[in-house]
């Protein structure tokens, strides 16, 4: 467990309150904050306004690799030991499209998963407070800050109707 990060954790029941709080924090120049939700939520995404996830790059590269691998393998293996069957060409393309396609999907999908694990799981913020209720029905917002800024942040959360604000040192 990474060392604990000091800051303020607020819990919200209401979506609009949480969003307002986020917007205000962002406006106040607060870049680093963590928002916990039980399900993906567009309003919050909008409020945070992060760019689109780079995971798609993994998908793209994986897919292309798979496609190349599929055709490469089949054609090379056919020519490595040429065997004539049913009067067909040694390395015909049409049947190999199937394998090219399947490998595209396979490697594309697997690399997407890798991307997900790398980006979402491995780079997840560490050492920040968390409450089981976040996976149930509450929204949580954590702002890492020193004791000096804490009171103002707490005030801000309360003002937006946070049901519970705790300071974390």
């Amino acid at each position, binding site marked *: 467990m990474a060392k604990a990060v000091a800051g303020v954790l607020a819990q919200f029941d209401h979506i609009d309150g949480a969003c307002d709080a986020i917007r205000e924090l962002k406006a106040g120049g607060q870049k680093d904050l963590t928002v916990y939700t039980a399900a*993906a939520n567009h309003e919050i*995404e909008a409020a945070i306004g992060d760019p689109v996830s780079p995971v798609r790059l993994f998908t793209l590269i994986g897919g292309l690799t798979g496609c190349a691998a599929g055709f490469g393998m089949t054609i090379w293996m056919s020519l490595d030991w040429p*065997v004539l069957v049913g009067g067909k060409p040694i390395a015909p393309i049409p049947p190999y499209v199937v394998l090219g396609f*399947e490998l595209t999907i*396979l490697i594309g999908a697997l690399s997407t998963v890798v991307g*997900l694990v790398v980006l*979402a799981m491995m*780079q997840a913020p560490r050492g920040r407070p968390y409450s089981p209720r976040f996976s149930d029905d509450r929204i949580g917002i954590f702002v890492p800050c020193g004791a000096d800024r804490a009171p103002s942040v707490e005030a801000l959360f309360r003002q937006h109707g946070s049901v519970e604000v705790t300071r974390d040192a």
Partner: protein
Amino acid sequence: MAVIAHDPSLPTQTHAEVTRDVIKTITDKPTTGYYILAGSMALLTLVLFGTLGALLKYGLGLAGYAPPIMWSIYITTFVFWIGIGHAGTLISAILFLFRSPWRTAVYRSTEAMTVFAVMTAALFPIIHIGRQWLFYWLIPYPNQRFLWPNFKSPLMWDVFAVSTYLTVSSTFLMIGLVPDVAAIRDHVSGWRKKLYAALSLGWTGADSQWRHYSRAYLYLAALCTPLVLSVHSVVSWDFAMSIVPGWHGTIFAPYFVAGAIYSGIGMVLTLVIPLRKVLKLDHMITEYHFDNLAKLTLFTGSILFYAYGMEYFIAWYSGSTFEQTTFWRRAFGPNWWAGWSMIICNAFVSQLLWFPKIRKNITSLFVISIFINIGMWFERYVIFVGSLANDYIPYAWGQINPTWADWCILAGSFGWFGLWFTLFYKNFPIVAIQEVKEMIPMPRRKAHGGAH
């Protein structure tokens, strides 16, 4: 919001209720009935592997094969299970891309069904070959013989398609599970907590995670969609690429895909209808969902109806005596009973679903779903066995006479599938918690239209 409130696709309960209801299905102590069910499934699984052992020891001759019918019950059952899988991916991936709201409640169960069905199907290519212990020769690995497999063979396509399908659909299932598993982790204790903690991969639901997660899930769905269509096309080409009258058809790919989804939804109904009662989820999986499933069934069933008709038309139109004989005997030959049960169960029974009364009646749906399962098994039996029984050389025509080895493997495959599914629904959320929550608007302080 008021508008949305009346949308039947929207769940009626709050986030908290959803969490509670779903987790209850896992934490509740299993009933005796559950143990009996799981036990009998385990028993059938033993039958499966026992028979497989016998086949390994004495050879495929134990089964009722009779040349010229070189593929019979096993391949029939293989395609049956592969087909079952397709509905799952259709609902979880394709309908996800279409953003159709009614999938959320059922997709988790169908997706699980997919994975287990494919796991079952994947056994058959191995069971049915003459020297099972050499199956690995179909994998292109570097060996001292300098030999490679023949990628022109539809069977090789099959190997790749099925293994890809198994891999991708199971990853898809696992990824979808992550947030739910995290939720359970937060609300159970003891060994369960450890287990789910491990499976949740450290999921917290932080915005940074959701950001990548929703994207990744979208792309997986996007990859699964063409995959599901390709897999059964490839399976159909196992037959369509041959020159056997009755197999050698250009419509096979779409025809098989439609059939697959049809049979899959049949199986979904067969599984989910009892399940929602047992797990007390009928307020989450409602008539509305079944109505939609029924419509899908009707649609694919009608495609089959068309395909059957078209097969006969082409047989007549082609003027090929071989095709004509095959299809004549399909209806009036020694296998007429199979031929007609396929047409009645699939083409005709599905048409009943035009009537909303039948569509919306859970019981009738269940009965129909059973017909579908039977009908679709027979469809494959008719196409494979029926066509092989009478091809080019009349002198070589024959009929099979299945034995215990055939039936044991067939029954055993249901056990194997059932065992996995039974274990799954009692240990994992059968309804996707986070997706259901995503559909439930969260409470607001100020009652205005929201941020939309």
